Structures are given as structure tokens and as C-alpha cells.
């Protein structure tokens, strides 16, 4: 990573999908990696099934702005395909998009799914994950978010054991089995890209 550059990650999805929870895991993992990191989120009415998004910035220099500019994000992690498209212009020219193919269509005027997928595939650096299939294979209904994070980890300067510690700590109150299932989902997502890509 570039020492003085400010790196940015945008996370998006629908209220209740766990966008803010993923952002907090990311923030903690970056902090434990010795980086300066900030996270921004908007709560309130957005908790009620509306669009939710969070941003995480990190750098080796101290940060004071929790907000990214358009074209300032290296990574967009989206739990829902339409909610990914809203934020594509936040990405740098060479940024990456990691997105679940699983739509949440309970809203008025959802565009045809084929149009959504076509628009996503037209984005250079887009990685679509069939989280529905993955959840079925792992027998873990909520595997999607952690799998996306696992794939995203290929682009982030965070060591394996830090991810493992942070994820374990996040879920340990819910028991060993929940923790294991989430680590498994993370690894499954991580396995979808073979080599680290670097941000």
C-alpha cells in the first residue's frame, strides 16, 4: 500500500443485512493492523429496511475526514446488487467491486434483474458472488456478508490471524458454533480469489 495515500472502502446494502456490523469488523481489523482508520455511518430512519451505507477510510497517516469523495474508494462491498450500483461512482478507476448477486426486491420500481447484472458486469474490477448458492452449500443462511468480507480481504493489508481474532471476538458471545460458521463463510469467500491482489 501507498504510505501516505488515504484508502477507502464503501459498504452498502439494505437495513437489517448487517452492513454496519461488517464495517465495524473491518474497522477493528484495520486498527489492529496498526493503521489509522475511521468509519462513517448514517443511522436513524435507514434502519427500517431502507438503503444503508457505511464508509471506512484508512491510512498510515492520521485521518480526520470520515467521508470519501466520489472516485476515492478502492473497494465497494455490496450486500445487494442494486445497492451496489448506487455507489459505483465512488470507486477509483482501478477500484474493485465485490457484490452479492442476491437481490432484495421488496420495493417499488426495482429494475429488471438482468439489467442490474449487466450493469454490474460492465464495471471493470467487478466480482459477483452467488451468495445464495454459497449459503446453501455452507448450510448457513447468513453466510453472504462474511463471504463478501472474505473476498474483500484479498485486497486489504490485514494479516490472516488478525481477521480470525476479530471475527472470533465479534461472534464469541453467540457461541462456538456461530463463530465457526462465520469463519467458514469468511474462508469460503476468501478462496474465491486465489492470489492477494493488493490495494
Amino acid at each position, binding site marked *: 500500500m501507498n504510505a501516505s495515500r488515504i484508502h477507502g472502502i464503501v459498504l452498502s446494502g439494505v437495513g437489517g443485512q448487517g452492513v454496519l456490523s461488517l464495517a465495524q469488523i473491518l474497522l477493528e481489523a484495520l486498527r489492529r493492523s496498526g493503521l489509522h*482508520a475511521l468509519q462513517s455511518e448514517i443511522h*436513524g430512519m435507514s434502519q*427500517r429496511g431502507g438503503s444503508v451505507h457505511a464508509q471506512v477510510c484508512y*491510512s498510515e497517516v492520521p485521518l*480526520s475526514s470520515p467521508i470519501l*469523495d*466520489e472516485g476515492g474508494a478502492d473497494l465497494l462491498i455490496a450486500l445487494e446488487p442494486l445497492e451496489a450500483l448506487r455507489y*459505483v461512482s465512488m470507486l477509483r478507476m482501478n477500484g474493485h467491486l465485490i457484490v452479492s448477486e442476491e437481490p432484495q426486491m421488496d*420495493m417499488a420500481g*426495482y429494475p429488471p434483474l438482468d439489467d442490474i447484472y449487466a450493469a454490474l458486469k460492465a464495471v471493470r474490477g467487478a466480482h459477483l458472488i452467488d451468495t445464495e448458492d454459497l449459503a446453501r452449500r455452507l448450510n448457513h443462511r447468513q453466510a453472504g456478508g462474511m463471504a463478501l468480507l472474505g473476498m474483500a480481504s484479498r485486497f486489504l493489508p490485514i494479516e490472516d490471524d488478525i481477521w480470525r481474532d476479530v471475527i472470533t471476538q465479534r461472534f464469541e458471545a453467540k457461541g462456538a458454533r456461530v463463530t465457526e460458521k462465520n469463519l467458514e463463510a469468511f474462508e469460503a469467500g476468501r478462496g474465491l480469489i486465489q492470489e492477494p491482489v493488493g490495494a
Partner: protein
Amino acid sequence: MVQSTLALGVEAVGCAAFDAGIKGAFGYPGTPSTEGFEAVEQLIRQAQDGRVAQWAANEKVAYDLALGVSYSGFRTLVTMKHVGLNVAMDAYANSALTGVRGGLVLLVADDPGMHSSQNEQDSRRLAEFAWLPCLEPSTVQECYDLTFRAFELSEALQVPVMLRIVTRLAHCRAALARRAPLAPTGLGPVPEAAIQDWVLIPANARRRYVDLLEKQPRLMAETTPLNRLVPGTKRRGVALSGMGRAYFGQLIHEHPALAELPRLEIAAYPVDPALEQAFLAQVDEVVVFEEDYPVLEERLGLRGSAKVRGRLDGALPRTGELSPRLLKDALGLATPAGKAATSLDLPIRGPRFCDGCGHVDAYEALQEALASVGAPATRVFGDIGCYTLAAQEPMAAIHAVVEMGASISMAVGAALAGQTPAVAVIGDSTFGHSGLPALLTAADAGVNVTVMILDNRVVGMTGQQPSQALDQVERMVRGMGVPDDQIQVLLPVPKQHDANVAAVAAALQHPGPSVVVFRRECIQSIRRGLLKDHDRQERERCTTEVCS
């Protein structure tokens, strides 16, 4: 290496208040201030050392509770959102005259851009209005450090101190370094000789007002060290506060030439005119970056010595929150192009009622009842809470939402102007907040007004905090003078729909005031089991005592 815990900006304020040794914290929930109270509440619960954290019925009550703690000689924190300060304004403005005993810090969270509010008023104006100091942090760590400082200032100057933050800072999460906590140390109550300072009869108030004005130079002497003039080599400068300061600070990393601009960095008000003049002497032009109103911009502009740019001359939008992009545009900095936005039309995905929410059943009953009495086009006065979502299409069940408690009084006003039936919809917590006095008037007005109280037993929208009206709504309604035979309690579930329609229709047709309480616990609260213990205790109590 970055250290210690992670916290939201608003939580950092709560942590600092605890560490500064407060005896009591009070507030009323409101985004984005809520987590400030919740952070200090959690620390106080863990400490188990006799301190208190108490949600209040409304912001004014919360402020007066804090003032009582201060009178008793202890430090205290009171939290609210910007519009909540309107409710507490009587207490806040007059506490400037009484002054404080123990340090009193008021956390106010403003919401520029109106992410979850009905306006974007600027609390700095209200501090100025009350002749009181206001501190304005720009990072999570500053939220902590300036809260700590605010307690010291409050006691040194013997006035309440406002700590003003905005949504972006309130909900920015970052590393936070805390100090060793102080234990609450009581100064003892207001001394005998100072009692008259706290009795604001005109003779005392006139004297205290003069005292307050005479104290202003001392206020400025304390706030000035928190403000900073950074010289530069250019004749164009920037004046910064809050997020403007945060965004500019980061831009300097990306555009090192910006460090050559002279800058006025403001973190505390009132601002010393001498500092403003010293800054203006260095520049021919200044761009002002501040959140909400053009407070600094107007002050600097009035001095007339430099061209002042910002929200008033169109260099920045007149409304809405700042962003790094707005700063760059105003400074003429280019932004490298990113990926192209999609050409697909993406409809907004707005918030909506949770699946299975009782409010939906209540509104469906109301709409059908209005149709059944031949008044389907009746304008319904709504209020602030999750149930405000009913204003959206396709439901469109409420037709006015103004401020907490307005529904009942507006419906009575409309009834007095001839509307019949007149209908108000209000939640249980909002009813306790400011619906009670409105209902007292409604019961006395002698007009046909139907008040629907949607009782979900918690403060739903802000995160299911406890409602002070819990289990007391009917008693409160009766106490306000509504006749017993005009109070109905209904269960908003689909299978009760027909019975509920008939009951609401009967209320609509009654010529005087009537109240229909729709009671079903918030779906989210049930999911979290928030009232399980409470309800079990109530059931146990009812087996041993006679209860209503």
C-alpha cells in the same frame, strides 16, 4: 500504533462525561444524539457507585433534572438533538442567569442535511442567544477532550456549557484514548449566600442578567485558547469549524500547497473579535467552511475588510451538509475521475414499516373507519416517530407532521376552525413527551377530536429505549379529563380489524373528545426481549396485589 478502544463521536462525549465524574446523566432520545446517553448509561450501570442515568419524559425535563444535580453541587450531562433544544430552551436560556454549581454540559447533536430531522437549525445560534459558551469538536478524540474541558469551563465560569456536534461526527467511529476516570466529588449545594441568584424573580433576574453580560469577556478569555490562527503565505485564507476543519485537515495531506493558506480554526464560541481581525489582516479573500448556518461567515463579512465567501455568496450551497467535494470545488481543486455512474434509473429505497408492525394495522383501521363514516378524505394530523412513515405513498394516512406533540393541538385547532371529524395520531412516548398538555386542552375544548395513541410500549424509532408512558397511557388520558366512556384500548392485529374499524368509527362520530389507544409491543422490542422482565414482574405483582 493507534491505541485504545473504538467509539462513535457521540459515544466519546458520554465516555468523557463519565470520566469527568458526573453524578447524573439525562436526555431524551433523538438521532444522532441517542448513543451519547447510552454510552454513559452503560458505564454508570457497570460502575454501580450510586450515579444515575435516566431518560426523561422530554428534553426540558431532562435539562431541569441536570440543573437540579448541578444545584446540588455535582457535575452532570444532558443530551438531546438540535430540535430537542427548542423544547428545553426555556430551561437552557434561564439557566444562563442562575448559572451552575456543579459543572453542567449540554450535548446537542445537530443534523445538517436532515438525515433524520425536520430542520437543520444551528445550535451555535442558540448558545449565542443565551449568552453561553459553545465548544465544537471536529474529531472523535476532540469530542472526548472538549467534553472534559467543557466541565472545567462550566465550573470555572459558573455557566452551562454547550457541546455541539453534527451527524457526521456523531456517527464517525474511530480510536479513542480515555483518561483515568474521576470520581464524582460534590461541591455541596448552592451556598446560602447565593440562593437569591437561583430565584429568578425580576429583582434578582435583572441583577443576574447584568452579571451574565459582564461575564462575557471572561467567557471569551476561556474560549480563545481553543481557537487558533495558523499563519500562511497566501492572501487567500480559510475559516474552519467542526467538519469543515476535519475535511480541510485531511485535504492538506492530499494537497500540501493548502498548508500555505492562512487559516482561522474555531473550536469554541464566543469568538474573540481581536482574533478575527488578526486573521482578516492577513487575507484579501477568505472561504468559510462550517456546518449549517453561516455563523462565522456573517461575523467575518461584517468586518468588511476582506471578501468573504461561503454559503451566502454561492461558493457553497445554502443548505445541506458539507462534504470533502464541496470544499474541493470551492477551493478550485480538481478531483480525479472515478468509475462512471450507472445509466440505469435507480429508484430510492426508503425506510418502511417492519413486517408485522402494529402501526400498519392501526392505520388500516383508521382509514377504513374514516371511509365508513363518509369522511375518507379527512386530513389526519400526525406526529414524530416510526408511525410518521405512514405519510409516504401508498399509505398516505397522515397529512401533517411538524414537531413533537403537534398532532393533538393541530387537530383541536382544525376542529375549532370547523373540520369534522378531526383526527390526531401520536405514539406513546411522544404523547408523554408533549402530548399530555395538548390533551388537557383537547378535553376542555368541547369539539369533536379523535386522538389515536399508537402505543408500542417503547421509543421505537431511536432504538427501542424505554417509554416513560409504559403501562400508564389510559391513566394519563383519564387524568387529562377525557371521559371514561370515550377511552378505548384496542389490539392492532389483522384478526381484530373489523372490530377495530367499528370502534374507531364510533369515536369519530362522538361529538366530543375521544381517545383510541392501539396497544401492541414494537416488533423489534419483542425480538430483543426488552420488556420480558418488566412484564414478568408485573404479572407476579398482580398475583399478590390488587392492580388495575
